[in-house]
């Protein structure tokens, strides 16, 4: 059972009753993340070292699966709409710009929802935007969930940019789509590769990217910073240092927890660049 402990806070409330109604007393937030547990001495150091290593490994594992991207999302979505189509379902209610559907095809695919495919003026420039809110259940019973927008476009500066928002998953797909992703991630192309901004969760990693990628001054290296959510719900910071995928993991208070490297990050960025700059 998962009962939360009974908190003696009501006693504190009683003690505070003499104060003016509505006033809140200062609170010790006790906000230390799990990774910075309160063990003492060597045990604490060992535990922290292990947790730091696990954190880097978890992020690396996500990178190895591939960074969520709008091309994978939209192509997979359009592919399954076409694959399951029996000539009338869902195509009879669709145009090239999309449409809504609620039908089961003779192919065994069941379709429900809508999508649209449009050229739009996005904040970064002109983009092809695939908007979707649908599910497709294939004959094996697996469900493709699409809920969000997948945008690919050209910036006013002449480079590409990509944005993936919402939730996307198809358990029989490959790469990040297999376990799915929840994303609000933007990638922008530069002469040396993509730069990532925004948040995404996939492969058990919840990450916020702050200009992470191949900044031109780094040459082939990487720069930027990430926020990484630990399993306990706290957020840890990682500034990539010296144009390497390495840095010091910090807790929310800025205290250093340990060093490590995201060895899979450079290759993940290269793969993303290859995929999105086509």
């Amino acid at each position, binding site marked *: 059972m998962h009962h939360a402990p009974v908190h003696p806070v009501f006693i504190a409330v009683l003690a505070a009753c003499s104060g003016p109604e509505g006033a*809140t007393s200062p609170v010790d937030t006790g906000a230390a993340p799990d990774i910075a547990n309160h063990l003492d001495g060597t045990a604490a150091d060992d535990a922290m070292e292990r947790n730091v290593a696990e954190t880097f490994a978890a992020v690396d594992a996500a990178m190895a699966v591939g960074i969520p991207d709008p091309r994978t999302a939209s192509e997979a979505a359009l592919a399954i709409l076409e694959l399951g189509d029996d000539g009338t379902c869902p195509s009879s209610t669709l145009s090239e710009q999309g449409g809504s559907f609620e039908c089961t095809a003779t192919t065994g695919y069941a379709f429900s929802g809508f999508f649209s495919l449009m050229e739009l003026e996005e904040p970064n420039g002109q983009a092809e935007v695939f908007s979707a809110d649908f599910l497709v259940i294939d004959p094996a019973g697996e469900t493709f969930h699409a809920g969000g927008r997948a945008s690919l476009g050209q910036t006013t500066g002449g480079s590409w940019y990509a944005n993936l928002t919402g939730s996307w998953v198809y358990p029989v797909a490959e790469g990040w789509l297999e376990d799915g992703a929840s994303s609000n991630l933007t990638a922008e192309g530069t002469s040396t590769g993509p730069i990532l901004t925004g948040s995404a969760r996939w492969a058990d990693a919840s990450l916020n990217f702050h200009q992470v990628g191949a900044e031109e001054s780094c040459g082939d290296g990487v720069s930027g910073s990430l926020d990484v959510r630990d399993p306990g719900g706290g957020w840890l910071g990682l500034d990539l240092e010296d144009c390497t995928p390495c840095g010091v993991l910090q807790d929310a208070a800025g205290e250093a927890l340990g060093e490590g490297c995201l060895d899979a990050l450079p290759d993940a960025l290269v793969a993303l660049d290859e995929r999105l700059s086509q």
Partner: protein
Amino acid sequence: MRAPSLAMAGLALVGSCTTEPPPPYGDAPPQAQVEHRQDLDAPRLLRRMSLDLRGVLPSVEELDAVEADPALVADLRDTWLDDPLLEERLVHLLAERWHTRTDAFDIEHYDYGFEDHEAYAWYRSVGEEPLRLMARVVVEDRSWTEVVTADTTVANELLGAHWPLDYPEGETGWQEVAYTDGRPAAGVLATNGLWWRYSTSAFNQNRGRAAAMTRLLICEDVLSRPVSFADAPNLLSDEGAAEAIATEPACVSCHATLEPIAATLYGFFPLEQYNVAEADTYHPERELQGEADLGVTRAWYGTPVDGLGELGQVIAEDPRFARCAAESFAAALWRREVALDEQAHIDALRDELVLADGRIKPLLRAITQTPAYRAGSLSDDAPADLLDRERTIRLLPPDVLRSSLEALTGFRWTTGDVPLLDEDSDGVRILAGGVDGEEVQTPQEEPGLTWALVGAELAEGAAAHAVQTELVAEEPGVQLFAGLTLDDRPGDTPFDGTLEQLIWQTTATRPDAQRLDELHQLWLAMEADAGAAEAWTALLTLLLRDPEMVTT
């Protein structure tokens, strides 16, 4: 003599609760109001408590017992606080305030592949999730703080099959389980059910949810504050409204509080409002987005928090949280809002809650001891404000009408799988005086035309069902007419005994000779016209729609 402090008064209560402790008035009871109220007599008070705490009428034996010894009211009430029926009753009582038992959400039943006839079960499952967590906390005598700190929720097999929950496979019913999507431990604040009811949009950005939190958890309703927009810039455009929120004093006065709370809720912020995966799964990666989007630091009334989990802890420590629990449960059982001059009562009830380590049952016990709860009438010279606000006669809410008549007669008023008194698309919940949480947000306090019509239909259906089952088909039923046959007539012992017992059980009032004679005459007239079964149906219909039956 110096009056004791509130805290001391609370301690005195704890020390003297072997039988019926004195009412927790605090040290300044509004004597005028106490003097102008007359308590219900013991059987009627017992009836009120039974319906409020269990949703069913007291048994004849229970009524007989308190008629003989009124002190037994307290004992029976304490027994009922441990009755399994309390949990279900609390769900409905809490729904009147939390408004989550709605008939529709942004995500529709068909989004999960449910057929239309399954919609009611699905929507109620969603809406009851937070209510059942709160009810479970109460019945298991856990601290009310767990309402905002628990790392669990309460879900049934429908939710377990479709949401990221560790609901045990193959089991059914409401069970305490945990989400598996990484959401923080924050009790009802981490439930889908709450945030599906209080949804948000790209522009609102959780502000409405934050306002709901302050209203529900600390009884601060920012929407009730008077705000002048006379000098505000153009509010019709998104840009104008955003600027006003940040700079216009009339707007800032609320939004300076709401935005930091709203920023803690971004794990529940959907990027596609009507998409299932966006709505039913927590998004931990968005937790930090709120501060950036709203331009504030996450906080609760100035106390910084590192996220929703810590927000729950901080709310639990806010003195207003316990006080709001006392006020809202008092209002629920008093069947009216708490008046400004009753704040001493609420303070005393709050102290009762605090001294009980946040357990709600002692609070409920204390509320049933207050004059406002026990009031059955007011004196002729009572002050106008008391006459205006006090509910000495209270309409039975639809859920109590339903459960009490079902227990009494075995009658279930449904269309398909939908109880008509619990739904508003096909049913009559609002017409019966209930709360749907959207269109109607407070229970009906005064009788009305539709309320009377629903009561008449319900009474007729229940009476016909009981008569047909037990007297015509001679099936056991619920033994409402045990010992009676259609051959019995007024003056026969089974007839007279049954009639007197029915009146006693349904109204907790002993009928006088004149009343019995009138009912005999009615039965005889109907029997002559349509037979004994129709006569009993008419008689029972009359009793079930009697004003003393449909009120407490």
